[in-house]
């Protein structure tokens, strides 16, 4: 049930309608990073039709009715993927009526599912897609309960849900400790208990007043146990990282760490257990007692130990800052191609997004033509394609710029 075929069908219709003039697209030249290889391919042509990549190669014959795009001197990569955001769930963070990404009152735990409130008309989508972020995991914000609920995936071109229930999200730290009475131990005990009980959960025999969770939460945990999706836990302190890895091992579930501020301390252990980590490469602040070990080379140290590193902007309004984060990871020791993989191929693999995050025959045509090194901050996305369709480079922000970039003249600003 991870792919919602109906929504995908609708996307395809939009795609066909808007590329009406051409039967396909041919992007030629430039440095191409397919993410199947560590090296760039040069002088290559990509043929795109029907929303997917038809062929990649040198000396391909380009059909006459294909749009020809010259990418010489540019860099071409898959569209970037943000591994954690509240896109579509938040319009204005400070205005509660526009925020659907977390629960403060009604205590729904793992059953909380953000897919029902993703707002495709959010102004955040155009702002970010035109900077090359084509897809994003949309997940509940860490709340009080150590299990926050299900995450989904959206494409930023249409703001539509493409994959639901891609992972179960949660967190262990001071905040969840406060919720269960004041100890991190109690958080872990609650998690162990909940998953154990979910194994033999039966709706008719379950008495919620004797347990931590309500029936619908236990049902969610039961479904999670049977689904081939990871548990994504925000954990920062080294000790709790180890505890959560052991918990997932007992459950026989794949685990992804998010945050992982002190993950570098247990990097070998994480590598041994094949736990990927979603890192914010800018975060070196000891901003809480869960995170005293914060350092800028966390991503590099994890990679060196053999851990797969995904990169997140930890943003929603500005998931476009993903590449700045990746660039900083490189500046602090992560190999360049690994940083690019951390915002393309790796998130697609970790969240089970087939044919996304790589450019290969049969893959979805999500790509970006960059003015230069995509991880550099002085470059920009010149063209962005999602599902075979070029994204209009227009947002509320470009409109505001057009309106006010020249303050002279008598025409009222409201007419500009």
């Amino acid at each position, binding site marked *: 049930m991870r792919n919602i075929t109906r929504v995908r069908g609708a996307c395809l219709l939009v795609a066909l309608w808007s590329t009406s003039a051409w039967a396909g697209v041919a992007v030629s030249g430039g440095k191409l990073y397919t993410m199947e290889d560590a090296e760039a391919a040069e002088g290559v042509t990509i043929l795109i039709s029907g929303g997917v990549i038809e062929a990649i190669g040198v000396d391909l014959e380009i059909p006459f009715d294909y749009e020809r795009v010259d990418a010489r001197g540019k860099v071409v990569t898959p569209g970037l993927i943000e591994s954690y955001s509240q896109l579509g769930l938040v319009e*204005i963070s400070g205005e509660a009526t526009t925020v659907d990404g977390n629960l403060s009152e009604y205590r729904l735990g793992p059953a909380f599912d953000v897919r029902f409130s993703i707002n495709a008309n959010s102004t955040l989508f155009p702002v970010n897609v035109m900077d090359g972020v084509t897809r994003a995991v949309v997940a509940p914000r860490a709340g009080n309960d150590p299990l926050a609920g299900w995450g989904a995936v959206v494409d930023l071109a249409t703001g539509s849900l493409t994959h639901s229930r891609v992972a179960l999200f949660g967190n262990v730290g001071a905040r969840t400790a406060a919720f269960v009475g004041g100890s991190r131990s109690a958080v872990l005990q609650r998690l162990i208990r909940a998953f154990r009980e979910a194994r033999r959960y039966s709706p008719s025999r379950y008495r919620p007043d004797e347990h931590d969770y309500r029936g619908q939460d236990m049902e969610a945990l039961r479904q999670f146990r049977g689904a081939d999706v990871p548990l994504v836990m925000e954990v920062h302190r080294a000790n709790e990282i180890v505890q959560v890895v052991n918990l997932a091992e007992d459950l026989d579930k794949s685990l992804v760490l998010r945050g992982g501020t002190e993950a570098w301390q247990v990097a070998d252990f994480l590598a041994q257990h094949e736990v990927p980590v979603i890192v914010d490469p800018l975060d070196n602040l000891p*901003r809480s*007692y869960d995170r005293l070990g914060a*350092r800028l080379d966390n991503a590099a140290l994890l990679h060196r130990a053999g851990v797969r590193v995904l990169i997140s902007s930890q943003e929603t309004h*500005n998931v476009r800052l993903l590449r700045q984060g990746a660039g900083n990871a490189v500046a602090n020791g992560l190999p360049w191609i690994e940083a690019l993989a951390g915002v393309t191929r790796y998130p697609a693999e970790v969240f089970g997004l087939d044919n996304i995050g790589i450019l290969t025959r049969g893959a979805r045509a999500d790509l970006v033509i960059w003015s230069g090194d995509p991880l*550099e901050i002085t470059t920009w996305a010149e063209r962005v394609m999602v599902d075979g369709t070029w994204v209009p480079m227009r947002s509320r922000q470009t409109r505001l710029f057009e309106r006010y970039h020249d303050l002279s003249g008598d025409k009222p600003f409201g007419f500009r």
Partner: protein
Amino acid sequence: MLRLLLLVLIPVSAIASEPYASTYVPLASDDLLIVNVTVLTGTGERLTGVDVRLSGGRIEAIGSGLSREGVRLLDAAGQFLTPGIIDVHSHLGNGPSPSIASTSDVNEMTEPNTAQVWAEHSVWPQDPQFPLALAGGVTTMQILPGSGNLFGGRGVTLKNVPARTVQGMKFPGAKQGLKMACGENPKRVYGERTQAPSTRMGNVAGYRAAWTKARHYAEQRAKPVDKQNTTVTEPDLAMETLVGVLNGEILVHNHCYRADEMAVMIDIAREFGYRISAFHHAVESYKIADLLAEEGICSAMWADWWGFKLEAFDGIPQNIPLVDQAGACAIVHSDDAQGIQRLNQEAAKAMAAARRVGMAVDEAQAIGWITLNAAIALGIEKRTGSIEVGKAADVVLWDRNPFSVYAHAEKVFIDGYLYFDRSDPARQPLTDFDLEQTARGRRL
């Protein structure tokens, strides 16, 4: 004996005139000749392959083929030299890491006018964020009170030097700031308590009432108490701050997002006869860049933050270059302990956003957004903020063009003293807090 007495008296009188006076003294440093470096001066110039001589804590000479006699040489081929970065809006020290209740000292939200509080009295010099900002090339910063109040209190300008006391960090002679705040924050904080202000008009009434009272207070305090005038005006610390602004001794730093609200604040300043030094978080400055240029008011802005509240909804990435292009003073500020470590990157993003839409902006111009323009807003532009002969040797040597994401500050000098050296852990300050903590001081 007399001479000894004088020596004792001088510092005493200095303290009397400047309470909580700076005790910062530049450390002695050897003369240094930085050779064959690319300089972004901060004044709009880019000099390639020049030598820069630092001597006695100052920039002594800039040119080609300077005399190498008697000075230590630092070959900087391929490297860039910029002025030390200045952040006009920071909460390092008063909003430190770890961010917990016992360290939360930014916002005195107990009444809408707390002009009597001074940010420097909240600054914890052992905040582990200071050395991180230093590693990002920040040599000077203004620490401000928060924005929950109409009048948040006085800000302080600090040198980013490791010190045991805040007095040891205070930028000697720099004026204090007065933090004022427009818009959503004060009306939300006090509105929720069903107390004034609860609306924007309540905000404005609050500023006007305070300035009216300050004017009256100044008049009363100036009158000699004698037979005609027997009313003794009680001293009032909040009023002392406002009067300091009216006298030009304290600079106004006004948190204000929306263009229309800035225009109202400009009129308030006109009504009461004070100057606004800078609007902070000015996400809509681009809408009134012409007015700001005319008024000579700086805008302190983020490169790309937007949407976290309604008054920040119209933020655009070209805000900074548009303000600059209009001839107004454009500044990139951080208000953030992560952002302050990478103000060069913030400036780079704003520059790139301009280029993307065809505006001509180069590094020589953009470096001014985080150096000289910031110094102007703080009133210290004659002392620091640019690489010019005679100015303080507050400079940063970058391993490459600082507008690259891959750039690192290699060496950071404050008044000529090497306070940070990326290749020498012994020259990387470590706070008391970070001793034997998990990261072992290796946060960089």
